[in-house]
């Protein structure tokens, strides 16, 4: 016979009832169970471009992104270090796994992750500029003035990034939309056409940006930043008159740009020579360049200056004493770049990474003038640079001598700055002669990087691979 505890049932029943009823109620209270709100850390694209503050935040992010990643970063992964190692500016002393080693040995392969990262990171940054341009154009709430300035900056960055890509990879696609259906099947564009688009974007940017800086630290471009890059683009294209005019436009803006006679002040945050620089990541932090190049005891942990470069300076050149420092362990002496001097944190940041500075405009104009036969004007600009380094006026006479002197001067002036040396050697057609003697791994096809293997596999339209890979 069964004995049943009625109590159990009596207590369980209201409990069950409560559960099922509360369940029914909770369901009645929400209309659509599987609809969710936006995650709290995200905004829809439309919202971002409704307000100038959020649109500005989207644009500022590109600057910090470029400062930290990709081609223009001052870390060991940027072109300043990698192209310095690739040419005759830097030797590499790091551990076998060091990312710089393949650049130093000129043995880049299509599978090289640093090369793939240059490509992917840069196109990701270009995507961000296009997203801003599209977002601004679609916005109905931003003022015309805000739209003009934001678009001007985005166009400038888009052109600048393509400029570096075309010089490293040769023919490349020029991306002007965010539409992946289009961007995933693009083909390579002949580099002359790429240059036309770069020049067009830079021109449009000059027209949109204001004369003055929005921030006293010059951390966002005014119209002279695209103008300065325009001068460089014309120079690389051999459009001498345009290059000279663009450079003059910058050089004539004397109320903003003041020639800095003291070498030790050129790379300070407040330098009036600076056309555009990157704000450091945090207050008190200084440049990534200083952290990459400076070392305190030998042998160097990562990189040192190539002695070939160090020995090329004449002994009285102030740049050798002010922009280069020596480290010795008693028997061997090494050198490092010392343009940026603040290795550690300082109470407030002393130095920012300078992307564009006035000196380059003088040398651009000097070269463009020399090419056009204005030898006196060329020497005038060249001597301005030489005199600051306590060198006498150049004794070059013929056009070729002057051009050679300018090339030599660029090596001394721009070492470890954004790969100038590599691009200059290529432009002058001197790269094979110069490097094959110094660099055992150098091949004539090394003037272009390989396209990343993953890229050729993802988009067959980008084939063929650059020669030699």
């Amino acid at each position, binding site marked *: *016979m*069964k*004995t049943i*505890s009625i109590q159990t*049932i009596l207590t*369980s029943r209201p409990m*069950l009832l409560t559960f*099922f*009823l509360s369940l*029914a109620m909770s*369901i009645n209270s929400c209309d*659509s*169970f*599987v*609809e*969710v709100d936006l*995650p709290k*850390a*995200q*905004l*829809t694209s439309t919202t*971002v471009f409704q307000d100038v503050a*959020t649109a*500005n*935040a*989207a644009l*500022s*992010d590109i*600057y*910090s992104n470029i400062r930290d990643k990709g081609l223009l970063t001052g870390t060991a992964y940027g072109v300043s270090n990698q192209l310095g190692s690739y040419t005759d500016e830097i*030797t590499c*002393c790091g*551990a*076998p796994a060091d990312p710089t080693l393949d650049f130093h040995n000129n*043995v880049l*392969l299509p599978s090289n992750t640093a090369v*793939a990262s240059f*490509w992917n990171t840069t196109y*990701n940054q270009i*995507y*961000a500029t296009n997203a801003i341009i599209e977002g601004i154009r679609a916005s109905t709430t931003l003022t015309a003035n805000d739209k003009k300035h934001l678009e001007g900056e985005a166009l400038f960055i888009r052109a600048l990034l393509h400029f570096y890509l075309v010089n490293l990879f040769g023919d490349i696609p020029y991306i002007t939309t*965010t539409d*992946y259906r289009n*961007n*995933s099947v693009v083909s390579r564009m002949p580099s002359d056409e790429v240059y036309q688009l770069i020049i067009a974007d830079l021109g449009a940017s000059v027209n949109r940006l204001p004369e003055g800086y929005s921030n006293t630290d010059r951390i966002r471009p005014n119209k002279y930043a695209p103008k300065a890059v325009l001068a460089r683009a014309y120079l690389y294209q051999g459009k001498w008159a345009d290059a000279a005019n663009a450079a003059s436009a910058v050089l004539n803006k004397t109320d903003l740009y003041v020639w800095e006679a003291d070498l030790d002040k050129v790379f300070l945050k407040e330098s009036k020579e600076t056309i555009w620089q990157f704000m450091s*990541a*945090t207050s008190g932090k200084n440049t990534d360049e200083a952290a990459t190049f400076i*070392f*305190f*005891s030998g042998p160097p942990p990562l990189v040192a200056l190539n002695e070939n470069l160090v020995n090329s300076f004449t002994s009285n050149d102030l740049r050798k004493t002010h922009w280069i420092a020596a480290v010795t*362990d008693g028997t061997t002496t090494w050198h490092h770049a010392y343009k940026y001097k603040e290795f*550690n*944190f300082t109470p407030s940041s002393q130095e920012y990474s300078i992307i564009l500075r006035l000196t380059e405009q003088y040398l651009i104009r000097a070269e463009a003038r020399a090419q056009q036969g204005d030898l006196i004007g060329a020497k005038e600009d060249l001597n301005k640079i030489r005199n600051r380094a306590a060198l006498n006026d150049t004794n070059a006479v013929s056009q070729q001598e002057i051009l050679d002197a300018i090339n030599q001067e660029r090596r001394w002036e721009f070492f470890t700055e954004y790969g100038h040396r590599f691009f200059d050697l290529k432009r002058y057609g001197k790269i094979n002669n110069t490097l094959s003697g110094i660099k*055992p791994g150098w091949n004539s096809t090394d003037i272009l990087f390989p396209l990343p293997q993953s*890229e*050729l*596999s993802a*988009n067959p339209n*980008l084939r063929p*691979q650059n020669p030699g890979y």
Partner: protein
Amino acid sequence: MKNFSIYRSWKGFISPFILGLYLSFTPALASTSIKYKQNIQPLSKISGIVTDGQNPLPGVSISIKGKAKSVITSDFNGQYTLEAAPNDTLVASFIGFKTLIIPINGRKIINIKLQEDITSLQEVRVNAGYYSVKESERTGSISKISSAAIEIQPVTNMLATMQGRMAGVSITQTTGIPGGGFEIKIRGQNSIRPGGNAPLYVIDGVPYSSDPIGYNQTSTTFPTVTSPLNSINPDNIESIEVLKDADATSIYGSRGANGVVLVTTKKGKAGKTKFTITASTGSGQVTSFMKLMNTQQYLAMRAKALSNDGITEYQAWDYDINGTWDQNRYTNWQQELLGGTAAISKLQGTISGGSETTQFLFSGNYHTESTVFPGDFLYKLGGAQFSLNHRSEDAKFKMTFSANYTAQDNDQPAFDFTYDARALPPNAPALYDANGNLNWENGTWDNPLRNLSAKFESKTNDLLANTVLSYEIVSGFVLKSSFGFTDLRHTESRISPSTIYNPSYGIGSAYSGIYLNNTNRSSWIVEPQMSWEKELGKGKFSMLLGGTFQNQSTSHLFQSGTGFSSNSLIYDLASATNVRVKLSDETVYKYQAFFARINYNWQERYIVNLTGRRDGSSRFGPGNQFANFGAVGAAWLFSNETFLKNSSWFSFGKLRASYGTTGNDQIGDYQFLNTYSSSGIPYDGVIGLQPTRLYNPDFGWETNKKLEVALETGFLHDRVFLTAAWYRNRSSNQLVGIPLPGTTGFSALQSNLDATVENTGLEFTLRTLNCSTKNFNWTTSLNLTLAQNKLLRFPGLESSSYKEQYRINQPLNIQLLYKYKGLDPQTGVYQFADVNNDGKIAFPDDRQTVVDLNPEYFGGLQNQLSYKHWKLDFLFQFVKQKNRNYPMGFAGQMSNQPTKMLNSWQQPGDNGPYQIYTIGYNDAAVTADYLYSESDAAISDASFIRLKNIALSYDLPLSIKNTQCKIMLQSQNLLTFTKYEDGDPEFTNYGYLPPLKIITAGIQLTF
């Protein structure tokens, strides 16, 4: 909106359901008002011995029929005593024996002889998630392991306990560091998306998300970021069931495509309150090392490499050979950095017991494991478990409550030392200088032990609770509701103090950093269900209807702090000069479903099983949120047909088949939205916003169609039991992050791809009872899986970005490789087949040799032997597979090499087999080395047979009543037989610590 109408239909369903429930109480009350009837029979003492015919049987539960509270168990000598009335009936039951019913008939001494129940395996009920079925009557494919197999394995991860024991389930351990992850594939890779192949985990009815909880800036110790699955403590598990075919998984709808892993935790058993204490201790070591060059061999290689490259004067940075480092020094870096012994210890205690109506279990455990690396690192795992079952005396109301709490505390170096151990030159300097400080040898090397101060620490607390309430309203009609709750709190940190940098950088604590990850995940689930069972004609009809409402929210807070005034303040974020929040996010996943099952069992001969589910998920955009899944399964128990019923040798025969659909929604949350998210990085006074992803609002479910046919046969009273199953699963509408070229700005886009992946396979399990005598028992179990994976359909593959990754009719896991042709005896450089005859070896045309890296077959062979008080259990796991060799880079650079590289080309005419040494200046050789690593020559046989587990135990013959003492010796990965030369053959990513060889000794006391 489309889902609105669905919701309406739910309301329509639930309202009468609740109403019906409510109304049902009134008549129910009337029907249950039964009067008490007093039992007035006098009680007398009954005693006796329980035996199996030969030996006394301890632990047998003996009860009086109809008296719930009367349960007792026999003691160690098989003796029992209880009080009963002369006309009562005794019920003696014991697992593995037939239950015996003995009318007392006035006797005082009753000796009970239990008969071993060799067919009892067929009577065991198997958990199928929302319902359970008798093993003999199941229509689906379900593999099971129980606590007996789990407890003998000295491991801390649930997936480790399953390795080699289940047909169709392939599990690979990714690292030997505790807290690391496992890769599991149930019947192969269904989704092209690498992250979309995890099964659904359900613990006591509560879905447990296996989405990673780590952060790539903090979980740098492991090849994959931290998985929450380490929180499922094997000590608490009673059984693990893996659901494989459509019949079993369709009721899990959109989440069943990759199989379902059901975990059932331990529950109390009726009987005397039992205390169990288990303690064990042991050690772990790396299974195998690579054979690397010694100093003499290495320096000879370097010298030759330099001379091959025409370098006569050693360069300043060639420290190993230019005299900077001692050239007579030799360090076996693998021994030095990975050769330690991990100390392992475990303590566990359980109290369980209860009456017929209420049972409880309470247990606690604590486990520690140190490291094989240098330094003091420790993994700690502890937890508590509580379980309570209750049923009313009329068995109409039932309640189950269980709660599991697990805490982990893991302290590891932030980086695995395996890479350094293999690459460091054998004459690299000493680790410590004379004063015991880290030796940097004047900045000429990166001391590997610098990473000892780069610490990874994680703490995970996980609570999982569930309650199931059920009430049988009228006979056969049960209303049930389960409620589940999970709460996981995980914190992780990695520090990067300035002391990890070469001092010649001159870096101070201003460059020290800390990375922090706080991830919390909580979820609740409510699943109301009703089931109905009825005899219908000559058969039995059962039906189940239910609904699911689940809400899961996950929050992440990723932070970094850099710039400290002192390294001793590094854990204090407030002392950091720069604090950055990298991600502060909360995501919500909501899920809603209705499911049903209809089963008809005709005379235990013909069984039909229909299951279905309608699912809605917040992971999809409007219009794509809902989908239907369903399956039909059938079984024919032909051994119950009259023509076979009385066969003397054929004891069991079943043919079963199933077909149906399941889905896959593992794509992460909010992927259909076009958004900007915070980058956390300030510039010009504002925190940046960056585009989150390329967006596609239109993607939907991945569907998986499963077909299975299986034959189960038992011979000689099931002493030989063989199951053979064939399956074919086809996954289509592939939900893929389609890789995009970098020119799009991103690397992938989420989208449905009209491709089909097929997995087919044969699974065999064989269990034989080889010997069963008075003192000696021997059973053998074998499982074997032969599986094939194939990309069946991929429209437009030729023009897609997958062109150089997949081939139609080939597995997903293929490698496209260059074809190695041998060494050029003149130049000493590797040669490859120039497939397109264009005079150069280049991607993609020449990289077309297909190699399949999926296992050809795998399985396990288990033997269980017992002799008197001794028990021996061992499992051999075997896998037939190929895998990549460990890439050491080109030989000749400043990095050690395997000894096989001694057989390198030295001068024209040599045949190697390995190519010319170079320090990196020989372009042709560097390129050829790269091509070699991407060629078929870089693949070798990585098959292995492993003594996965061996456990020996001895029951001390104690004379103390009701007390048992067992001594145990257990080992994991004790022996490995393989031809693979580059370390242990079990890995997914190379360069990480292999699974450890563990040996422990322990003692278990029960009283």
